[in-house]
């Protein structure tokens, strides 16, 4: 239920409840008051009614007494003149409204009856009236033949008491109606008489014909003499009975007066109707008002909710149309303020997120976005990204701390802004700045690089601190090296790394030297597949025994013919295998292939010792000696038929574990050789600890042996020393006859190189052996 509906409902319910309660209260109070008023009125009316009836009897008595004083009548009475008496009484009865006139003697016997109901001499039934009338007129209400009469008895003095005249005045409906018309008597008046069986019968009633007495009498034998509330059907009355003066011989006669509460309430009915109308009107007005008020509350709230949703969606425009002075207006104002604050904060965060704090230059994210935008705007147009790196920075951080570093970087940032020549400058990483030069080609980029280097040539000075920055610049070109910002940044960084590692302070990205090209990842997958599918070949480079002049050994070299890329350089994929943890599989494969070939040659009766390369990672593998032993056992090959070559570096990494593995291999009778000897940092003294039988002099010493005296001295020294220590020596990279001759001269044991033969497949190797034997017999 919406707020609007609830408010309206509450309002209306409250209104209805209050009005209903008020109405009930007012009705009850009014009714109670009216009943009280009715009871008061009834008491007054009862007295008034009795008084009016008495007035009637008084009037009749007066009239009759005047008659009684009529001399002629008195004369007629005295003379017992029946006819005169009869006619005089009848005549006078009409005057006073009597329906019956009687003349009684002093003993109460009827002398004359105008109605003829009593014969002469009969006792008048109302003896008490007769007796009372001796002294004064007496009257009583009597019930006679189902009707009520005032029986008024007046003495006749002539001049002493000679008799009485009784006049019967009917109290009928007409009389009651007249009385009601003449005064404020209640509409409900009944005259009732009690019959012998105590039941009350109605003798006459007033204008309103409701049988009050029947109900009253049904309730109790005695009629209530106090105002009593009673219900007749659906009507309410306050009723009171008044016993009227009675004659002993007559049944008791009473008047029952009723006050109709409904009647009294009738004037209030239009008021109630008006009230109900007002209530209905109030309800309608209240509903409309409540709805309007609720709407005036809920509409701004809905607007604010909509504003909140807009803010959620990133639209910080102020809420509309809320110009109010009430609480909702305050809320809207606060809302607008909040939206504005959020907008400002977001802008600041956005700005800061694209800024480097130390230098106030755009950061890498901003640079990426900017460069991407530039490249997108001018696709396929030349552009250059220069990455300026400071080799000394990590050192500065370690020794001087970040604060100094930040100041250094701020200084650098300012310094490179000029030489950047309007290019976009950003701080790419902690130690690197990126300068994007739109429209710059290779030459311009290199020129800019030199300008940058010049700008950074001066050391950074601060107080007594002087720091050499050792800058370098890497350059990547678009669209040559990359067409995206990310690629461009990465390649410039690679170029920078290359520059940092060399003498040249500026390097342009070279895809060939990039060890981080993405193709390498797929190449690795391909290598695994090649291992699984046996797509690799093991080639064999012959080793010439210089003393014997014959080939008696071969170095197994892995060759990979990639289905798509063609021949893949061994250095490339071996390094890749080492980095990605696949070298052990490669080694395992090479061992299996080499030993199998050695077996074939062994069976063919050829004494060719196959040398196989073992990587540094393989020396971590404690299983290696066992695996080699299993392969030899599998092929039933003597261990002398193979040799394993290890580089110096491999042993230097984890000497203890590596030496343990090597000792086990040596223990199995396998010859071990140190590959690429001379370029590493190991000393011969150290090598003495290893179970090694052969040294392979690195080809860097051999390549220029034919022309370099220094190299000749070195190699000679190595050979002499090795021989003194009991090692055999093999020279690699023998390309010249002179070199071969020199090696022979100094007593080197084996030579290996293109001069003798390049690495050959097994069958080509066999063919080479055949030819060699023919060419150099013996």
């Amino acid at each position, binding site marked *: 239920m919406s707020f609007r509906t609830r408010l309206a409902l509450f309002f209306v319910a409250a209104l209805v409840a209050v009005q209903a309660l008020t109405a009930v209260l007012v009705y009850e109070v009014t009714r109670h008051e009216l009943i009280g008023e009715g009871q008061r009125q009834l008491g007054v009316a009862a007295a008034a009614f009795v008084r009016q009836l*008495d007035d009637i009897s*008084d009037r009749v*008595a007066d009239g009759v007494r005047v008659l009684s*004083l009529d*001399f002629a009548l*008195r*004369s007629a*009475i*005295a*003379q017992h003149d029946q006819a005169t008496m009869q006619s005089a009484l009848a005549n006078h009865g009409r005057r006073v409204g009597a329906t019956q006139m009687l003349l009684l003697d*002093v*003993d109460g016997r009827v002398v004359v009856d105008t109605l003829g109901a009593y014969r002469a001499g009969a006792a008048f039934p109302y003896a008490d009236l007769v007796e009372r009338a*001796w*002294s*004064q*007129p007496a009257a009583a209400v009597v019930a006679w033949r189902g009707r009520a009469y005032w029986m008024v008895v007046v003495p006749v*003095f*002539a*001049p*002493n*008491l*000679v008799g009485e005249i009784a006049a019967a005045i009917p109290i009928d409906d007409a009389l009651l109606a007249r009385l009601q018309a003449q005064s404020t008597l209640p509409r409900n008046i009944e005259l009732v008489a009690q019959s012998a069986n105590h039941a009350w019968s109605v003798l006459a009633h007033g204008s309103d014909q409701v049988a009050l007495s029947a109900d009253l009498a049904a309730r109790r034998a005695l009629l209530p003499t106090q105002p009593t509330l009673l219900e007749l059907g659906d009507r309410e009355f306050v009723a009171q009975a008044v016993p009227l003066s009675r004659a002993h011989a007559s049944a008791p006669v009473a008047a029952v007066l009723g006050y109709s509460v409904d009647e009294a309430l009738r004037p209030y009915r239009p008021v109630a109707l008006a009230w109900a109308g007002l209530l209905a009107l109030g309800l309608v007005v209240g509903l409309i008002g409540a709805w309007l008020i609720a709407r005036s509350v809920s509409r701004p709230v809905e607007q604010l909710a909509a504003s909140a949703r807009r803010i959620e969606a990133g639209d910080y425009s102020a809420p509309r149309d809320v110009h109010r002075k009430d609480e909702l207006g305050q809320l809207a104002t606060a809302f607008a303020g909040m939206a504005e604050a959020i907008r400002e904060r977001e802008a600041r965060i956005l700005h800061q997120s694209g800024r480097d704090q130390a230098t106030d230059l755009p950061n890498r994210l901003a640079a990426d976005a900017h460069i991407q935008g530039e490249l997108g705007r001018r696709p396929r147009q030349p552009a250059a990204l220069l990455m300026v790196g400071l080799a000394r920075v990590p050192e500065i951080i370690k020794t001087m701390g970040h604060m100094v570093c930040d100041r250094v970087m701020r200084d650098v940032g300012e310094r490179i802004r000029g030489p950047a020549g309007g290019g976009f400058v950003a701080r790419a990483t902690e130690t690197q700045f990126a300068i994007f030069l739109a429209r710059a080609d290779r030459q311009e980029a290199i020129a800019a690089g030199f300008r940058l280097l010049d700008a950074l040539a001066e050391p950074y000075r601060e107080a007594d601190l002087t720091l050499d920055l050792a800058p370098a610049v890497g350059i990547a070109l678009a669209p040559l090296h990359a067409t995206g910002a990310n690629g461009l940044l990465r390649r410039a960084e690679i170029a920078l790394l290359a520059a940092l590692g060399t003498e040249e302070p500026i390097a342009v990205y070279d895809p060939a030297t990039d060890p981080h090209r993405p193709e390498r990842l797929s190449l690795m997958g391909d290598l695994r597949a090649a291992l699984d599918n046996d797509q690799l070949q093991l080639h064999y480079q012959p080793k010439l025994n210089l003393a014997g002049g014959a080939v008696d050994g071969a170095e197994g070299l892995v060759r990979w013919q990639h289905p798509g890329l063609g021949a893949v350089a061994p250095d490339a994929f071996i390094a890749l295998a080492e980095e990605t943890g696949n070298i052990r599989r490669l080694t395992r494969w090479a061992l299996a292939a080499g030993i199998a070939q050695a077996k074939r040659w062994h069976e063919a009766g050829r004494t060719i010792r196959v040398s196989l390369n073992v990587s540094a990672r393989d020396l971590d593998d404690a299983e290696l000696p066992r695996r080699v032993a299993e392969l030899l056992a599998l092929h039933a090959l003597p261990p002398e038929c193979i040799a394993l070559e290890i580089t110096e570096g491999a042993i230097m990494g984890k000497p203890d574990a590596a030496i343990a593995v090597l000792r086990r291999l040596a223990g199995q009778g396998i010859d071990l050789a140190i590959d690429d000897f001379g370029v590493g940092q190991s000393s011969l003294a150290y090598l003495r600890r290893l179970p090694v039988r052969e040294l392979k002099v690195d080809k860097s010493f051999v390549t220029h042996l034919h022309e370099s005296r220094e190299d000749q001295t070195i190699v000679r020294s190595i050979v002499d020393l090795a021989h003194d220590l009991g090692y055999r020596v093999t020279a690699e990279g023998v390309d010249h006859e002179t070199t071969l001759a020199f090696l022979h001269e100094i007593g080197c044991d084996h030579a290996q190189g293109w001069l003798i033969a390049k690495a050959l497949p097994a069958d080509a190797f066999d063919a080479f052996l055949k030819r060699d034997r023919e060419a150099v017999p013996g």
Partner: protein
Amino acid sequence: MRKTAWLLALLAPLAMVGHAAGLSVRIVDGHGAPVADAVVTVVSRVAAPAASAQPPRTRVVDQKNLTFVPYIEVFRPGDSVVFRNSDNTRHHVYSFSPAKAFEFVLAPGQSSAPLVLDRSGVVAVGCNIHDRMIAYLYISDAPWIAHSGAEGRVSFDGLPAGAYEVRVWQPRLRPNKPDLAQIATVLADADPQTLTFTLSLLPDPRTQFDREHTSY
């Protein structure tokens, strides 16, 4: 005084008979108050009343200030009554009583001709013009007769010893009880008897009719 005078005259013959006795009659109403205007008659129960040897007399009932004076007058049969109008208004004097019925108008200062009351009984006399005027003529041949004054007492002296019937009448006695009677035996003067009559009386109509316009 007058009353005593003619009572003595009445009793004079009896006193000569022999022993004489006294009888006192007290008349009270229901409240014990003395009742005036009560006529007491005493009749011997053994001896027949002696014939009246007195000559008839004429008495005057005056009308003064719209009132009959006296209110009650005692007569012997054969006595006459004369009505005299001493007011300056006319009076229409009448009576419907069986003992004597008459009717005439008296001009101011006029007196009626003597009316002979020859029968015993009570004659109620009224004025047709003035309702409250009423007078009673008590006609009796009883040997002893007297009416009470304001003190409500009547005394008889010199009654011969013997038994008597004593009757009391009052105008306001209830109509169905015209008079009361008691038997009294008197022995001697030295032994005066006192009889008390308690009367139940109606209101005096003379005062009643003053209230013409009041309720009852």
